[in-house]
């Protein structure tokens, strides 16, 4: 079966290898030593399988040791504040009602005032000395939370929309980049006001099966204040 064609002296490698692999027969048993000498293919196949099972044993032993050691440490330690903060944030984010639900109606006069203020601020911004542009590819300091709940992430069947969550206060826009496995840009950076980002089919076709995408949170002053990344593999 998997180990190649058997010689004429035995029907299949499996009938020899399987009993040893499952422990019904010791690898040092005389009959095993005999057929190892008799069939080089069987001997090589057995060696490869035993190497693999030894690797698995090693992984298992390390895992059991680490898990017990860490569990012992944690059982006597106070709760980790950083862990608590993340878990509570995740729970709150899930429990929060959708943003649109229950949103109070904004009076028209307030909309007009806000619009006038926005025009004023834009005009003032345009007249003021230019703010040195910041390379949106290089985070220069993190004052906002990095994007969370970034999707897609990991192995997925298909890619359609890119979504994430980020602190609203101070976040003005987002820059999305897609990189190939060597870190080279697959597309030009895309700047958008709010998630999700839904690339069109022509753009999606340019994505490799394995890519990294990242979102930079850009403040009103053009400074990149946080960046999040995720690796994605699209299942063939």
């Amino acid at each position, binding site marked *: 079966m998997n180990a190649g064609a058997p010689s004429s002296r035995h029907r299949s490698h499996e009938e020899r290898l*399987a009993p040893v692999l499952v422990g019904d027969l010791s690898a040092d048993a005389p009959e095993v030593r005999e057929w190892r000498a008799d069939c080089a293919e069987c001997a090589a196949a057995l060696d490869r399988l035993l190497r693999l099972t030894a690797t698995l044993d090693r992984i298992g032993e390390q895992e059991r040791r*680490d898990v017990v050691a860490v569990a012992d440490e*944690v059982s006597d330690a106070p709760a980790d504040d950083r*862990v608590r903060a993340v878990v509570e944030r*995740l729970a709150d984010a899930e429990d929060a009602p959708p943003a649109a639900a229950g949103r109070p109606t904004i009076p028209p006069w307030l909309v007009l005032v806000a619009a006038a203020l926005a025009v004023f601020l834009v005009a003032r911004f345009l007249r003021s000395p230019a703010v040195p542009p910041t390379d949106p590819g290089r985070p220069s300091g993190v004052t906002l939370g990095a994007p969370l709940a970034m999707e897609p992430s990991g192995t997925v069947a298909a890619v359609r929309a890119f979504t994430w969550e980020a602190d609203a206060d101070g976040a003005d826009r987002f820059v999305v980049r897609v990189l190939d496995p060597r870190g080279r840009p697959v597309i030009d950076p895309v700047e958008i006001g709010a998630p999700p980002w839904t690339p069109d089919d022509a753009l999606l076709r340019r994505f490799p099966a394995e890519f990294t995408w990242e979102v930079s949170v850009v403040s009103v002053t053009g400074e990149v204040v946080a960046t999040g990344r995720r690796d994605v593999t699209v299942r063939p």
Partner: protein
Amino acid sequence: MLRKLHDRPATPTGRIPSHEDDLALARAVRAREPAALERFVRRMGCVPRMLRRQNGRLGGPLDGDDVDDLTQDVLVVIWRKLDLFEGRSTLETWVYRICRLELMNGIRRKRRRPDLMDDAERTPDDATAEPEDDAEAALRGLERLGPPASDVIRWKHFEALTFDEIAHRLGVSSNTVKTWYYRGICRLRDQLERGAGSDADAVEGGAT
């Protein structure tokens, strides 16, 4: 307070912990029971420790800040996958496997982005080096294998169960378990020899 793993009561088989407490905890967390959330937070204190331990074993390719960032990412993954936890291992073992895969992804991500590395961290081979070794390749291969073979192999090698104990757990004969095991090991070996084990397409934290 977390009970130490080796203090857990054994089932009548004498060796197989049921992990039912952990499954109940996961469900209670999803139901937002305050006491369960508190216990969950305490037990997830294992995440930064596991990441530091695993990172240290690999020679510390990630610095302290990287590990802190990764801790947050891992907690997000755990939270999202908590519904998938089936209690087939302890919560800590399940988390440990997620930490391991996320750590390898984090190291790979960092090595693909030389601009994120300090000069002191950079070596001439970093541009192409992959942190994967036989162990990681085998683990990723196991993720691809899928049940029942992947479960049987994990229980046999990672939890040191006998074929009889696995058969009891699955409600099938020992011979069936041995067949699944043997075929699984052969498929895993074939995957690794084809080099498929180096693909980063394992389902993160899918192992339970």
